[in-house]
């Protein structure tokens, strides 16, 4: 287990980027912090700036307007960073791939380390996804 992996096994700080989404996934992510699932007891925090983050959660189908901002956010992130694509829209574009503003699913824009499919994925699925990611890294 290298130094980097050792660090990642402690509390992860998570930054959330919502693309063009219906909000279901955003709310399920926030739900992870609420008393029923309570991610904060593991030290996992939602932070307000990408520069403090270890994990970047991306959801929503990315439209052309969001694409540059996603690339900007990814470039500002301190490396190494784990990118997790959440929800059907994040993984493949979901329902909206035929739309005139669709700019490709997340993995065509930035490299993605893990996918959590679902519409929306339950908080348990999101937590399981993050943990699997950390264990496999």
């Amino acid at each position, binding site marked *: 287990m290298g130094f980097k992996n050792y660090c990642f096994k402690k509390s992860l700080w998570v930054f959330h980027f*919502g693309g063009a989404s*219906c*909000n*279901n996934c955003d709310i399920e992510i926030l739900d992870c912090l*609420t008393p029923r699932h309570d991610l904060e007891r593991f030290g996992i925090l939602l932070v307000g700036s990408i520069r403090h983050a270890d994990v970047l959660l991306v959801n929503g189908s990315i*439209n052309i307007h969001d694409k540059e901002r996603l690339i900007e956010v990814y470039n500002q992130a301190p490396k190494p960073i784990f990118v997790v694509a959440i929800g059907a829209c994040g993984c493949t574009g979901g*329902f*909206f791939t035929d739309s005139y503003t669709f700019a490709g699913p997340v993995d065509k824009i930035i490299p993605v380390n893990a996918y959590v499919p679902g*519409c929306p994925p339950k908080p348990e699925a999101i937590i399981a996804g993050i943990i699997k990611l950390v264990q496999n890294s």
Partner: protein
Amino acid sequence: MSKKTLIPIGPYHPLQEEPELFKLYCDGEIVKDVKWETGYNHRGIEKLSESKTYEQIFFLVERICGICSSSHPFAFANAVEEIADIEITNRTKYIRSIIGELERIHSHLLWVGLAGHFLGYNTVFMWAWKYREPVLDLFEMISGNRNSYAMFKVGGVRRDIEEIKIQVIQKVLDDIKKKTDLLTGAVMDDPVIHARTKGVGILTKQDIIDYGAVGPTARASGVAIDVRKDDPYAAYPLVNWKVITAEAGDVFAKAEVRLLEMYESISIIEQCLDGLKKEKEGEISVKVKEIPEGIGNGRAEAPRGEVFHFVQSDGSNSPVRHKIRAPSYVNIATFKKSCIGQTISDATISLAAVDPCYCCTERMAAAYDLESGVKLMNANELINESVKRTNELKKTIMSKL
């Protein structure tokens, strides 16, 4: 000479969730102008609709907004059933109303939590979202998913609510009533919340009429419009309930309207459950041959106000035109009126009071010029301003007690 400072809220603020950029032009502490930049969430849904069949469109419109996830299919079903003159069964009406009202409860609880957070009451946020969970569990029991329930179809609903589920719903509702009492007491009687929200973000009756605002935003300013009473649909004319209004038009009035509406929703669901017991199980849809040529105007009362769907059909499997208007489209425009003249520490709570469901609306792109002498405050810092103000008020009020 007074300096104009530019303070953006957003675009990726963790607790506003959706990307939306509000730019507040301030003169010292007072907000003088608001400009916003949108286009981040436009997904081209109306164009997508024209290439999908009517059955597929139900899944599409559900995902316009996650929180009002049943209101859009509700209005769309009303529109299509109007074109084809379809009469739905009583059981369908009750089930649809139950889903609509359960959604209202969970949406208002979500709003109470977010408003609490913006004021600096993180405990209210955690409690409100914890009390939402039983409602989401009910949805999972009824439909299989916590959000995006896929319950609606043309002429009926896709799943039934059987006797055993009725009992579970009743038990959970009793529990929610107690929790709502707790939350209402905590929020409505707190002198600091009174000080933070009374007289803040006021919208007059004339403002509401001028902007065409709807929902609790309008009802809190004394404009008693509610689609469930004005243009009744589903089971609403079959049960007893009343429209909640308030007069002051400020943030406190909006919170009061939403909290009291939860009690009405619980009462409507209980009456619908009684109605279900009298109807025959299994009669949840009618046969639909085709959608003829015609025009349908369908509307429903979402937690945020009136959802309106216009559907024009030419007899084929897909609509010729499907226009969707969500309540936040007209409500967010009122933010300009309610925010100008306030201090920056009140800006976030004025915005939250409109309960903007950004994904229902689209963000607009408005070009703005940057004034010189800019001090940039990001979204977190704006929330901190609001929390600071709450703490100041707490000290003043507690010292007087």
